[in-house]
C-alpha cells in the first residue's frame, strides 16, 4: 500500500510543478471530444475546437516571448538613446538645460535647411543649454539625433537662425560619420546589446562605462584635425550647390575664428573642434601660383 501511495505521489509531482495554464487551455481540456466526435463534426464544433487550439498555441508563444523579453538587454540603438538621455540627466546641473529660453525658431530653420539639402525623414531633438561649459555636441538617440547648443555662445556670437542651423548641420554630419560612437563605444556594448540575461542579474556596468566615455569625449577628447577636415569637406560638398548657404557657412567660420581668439571663456573649444581657422583655410580656394 505504501509503495502505491509513493508511486502515485511521484506521478503527481510533475503535474503540480507545471506552470499555470491559460484560460483557453483549460477550456480545451474540459470537453472530452472523442465520445461525441460525430455530433461535433456535424455541428461544426470540432472546427471550433481546432481554432481554439490554434489560438492557445499563439497565446502561449506570445506569453513565452513576453517572458523572455523581460530578461533582454535593449538593442544597440535603444542603448544609445537611453545612455544619451541618462548622461543629460546625470549632468543636468552642469549643463543647466532646465531654464526658460527664448524661442529662436531653430526647429523650423534647421528642418528647412535639412530638407533643402535633401535630408528627409530625419528625426531630431535640440537641447539649448544655459552654460558655456559645453558649446555644442551631437549625441546618438534611438531613432533620432540629439543636438546640443549653448545659449551663452549663441548670444555672445550674436548668431542668426541660419548660422545656428549650419552649426547644427555640421554636428549632424559629424555624428553621421560615426566619430562619436566609434570613440565612445565599448566591446561590452556590442557583445551585450540585444542578448538575454535570464537566470542572472542584469549587468549595467557597461552603461556606466559609456557614461564616462561620453563625458571624456564631450569635455576632453573632442575631435582630431583629420576628422574635422572630413567634416568640413562634407559640408563643402553639401553646401556648394547653394552659394548662399556656402557663403553663410564660410562667413560663420571666420566669425567663430575671430570670436574664439579673443574670448577666454570658450578657450577649450579649439582643442575640442580644431579649428575654425583651419576650416576657413580648407575651404578657401587654392591661391594661384604664377
Amino acid at each position: 500500500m505504501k509503495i502505491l501511495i509513493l508511486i502515485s505521489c511521484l506521478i503527481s509531482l510533475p503535474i503540480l510543478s507545471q506552470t499555470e495554464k491559460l484560460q483557453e487551455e483549460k477550456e480545451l481540456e474540459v470537453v472530452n471530444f472523442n465520445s461525441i466526435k460525430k455530433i461535433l463534426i456535424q455541428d461544426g464544433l470540432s472546427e471550433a475546437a481546432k481554432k481554439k487550439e490554434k489560438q492557445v498555441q499563439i497565446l502561449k508563444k506570445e506569453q513565452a516571448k513576453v517572458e523572455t523579453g523581460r530578461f533582454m538587454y535593449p538593442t544597440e540603438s535603444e542603448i544609445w538613446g537611453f545612455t544619451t538621455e541618462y548622461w543629460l540627466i546625470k549632468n543636468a546641473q552642469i549643463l543647466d538645460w532646465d531654464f526658460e529660453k527664448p524661442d529662436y525658431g531653430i526647429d523650423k530653420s534647421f528642418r528647412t535647411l535639412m530638407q533643402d539639402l535633401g535630408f528627409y525623414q530625419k528625426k531630431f531633438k535640440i537641447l539649448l543649454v544655459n552654460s558655456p561649459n559645453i558649446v555644442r555636441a551631437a549625441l546618438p538617440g534611438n531613432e533620432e539625433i540629439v543636438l546640443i547648443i549653448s545659449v551663452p555662445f549663441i548670444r555672445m556670437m550674436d548668431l542668426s537662425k541660419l548660422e545656428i542651423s549650419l552649426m547644427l548641420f555640421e554636428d549632424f554630419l559629424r555624428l553621421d560619420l560615426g566619430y562619436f560612437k566609434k570613440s565612445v563605444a565599448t566591446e561590452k556594448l556590442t557583445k551585450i546589446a540585444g542578448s538575454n540575461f535570464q537566470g542572472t542579474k542584469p549587468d549595467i556596468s557597461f552603461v556606466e562605462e559609456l557614461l564616462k566615455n561620453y563625458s571624456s569625449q564631450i569635455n576632453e577628447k573632442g575631435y582630431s584635425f583629420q576628422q574635422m577636415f572630413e567634416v568640413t569637406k562634407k559640408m563643402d560638398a553639401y553646401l556648394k550647390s547653394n552659394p548662399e548657404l556656402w557663403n553663410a557657412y564660410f562667413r560663420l567660420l571666420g566669425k567663430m575664428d575671430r570670436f574664439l581668439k579673443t574670448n577666454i571663456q570658450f578657450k577649450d573649444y579649439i582643442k575640442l573642434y580644431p579649428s575654425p581657422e583651419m576650416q576657413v583655410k580648407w575651404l578657401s580656394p587654392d591661391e594661384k601660383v604664377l
Partner: protein
Amino acid sequence: MWWLLLFPSLLFAESNSTDERVVGTFYFNPMFGHVHQSALRTSASLTTIQCSHPVKVIESSKVSVSKEWAYVQVADHRGFIRKEFLTVKRPECFQGKYPRFFDAFNLDLSELYYWGRLNDQFIQGETRVK
C-alpha cells in the same frame, strides 16, 4: 419659500457641469514627464508621470489653452501636458519592454524629475517625407 434661496445655487451647479467635457483618455508617450501647473515648458510640476500612464483630457470653457497644450486630469491633479506627448493607443515603453534592465538602474526621485523636465525642454522635429 425657502426653496427660492436654493434655486440660484442649483442653476450654478448645472452650468458648472455643462461647461466641462472629457475629450477622452489618452496615454503618456515619453519615458517620463510632468503634469504642469500652467501651459509652459518651464512651469512647476504638479506630479511626475511615466510612459503609458492614462491621462484624461478635459475641455473646459474656464480654461483656455494654446493648441500645443492639453488641459488634463491625472489622479487628483489637474494641469497641462504638451499634446505631442499624448497618444490614443497605449505606447510600447522602454521601461515596460525591458523592466529588469531598467529596474537595475534604481533611478532616484530627482533623476525621475529631471528625466521628465528633459523631455519638456527638448525642441523636437522631423524633416518631411520626400
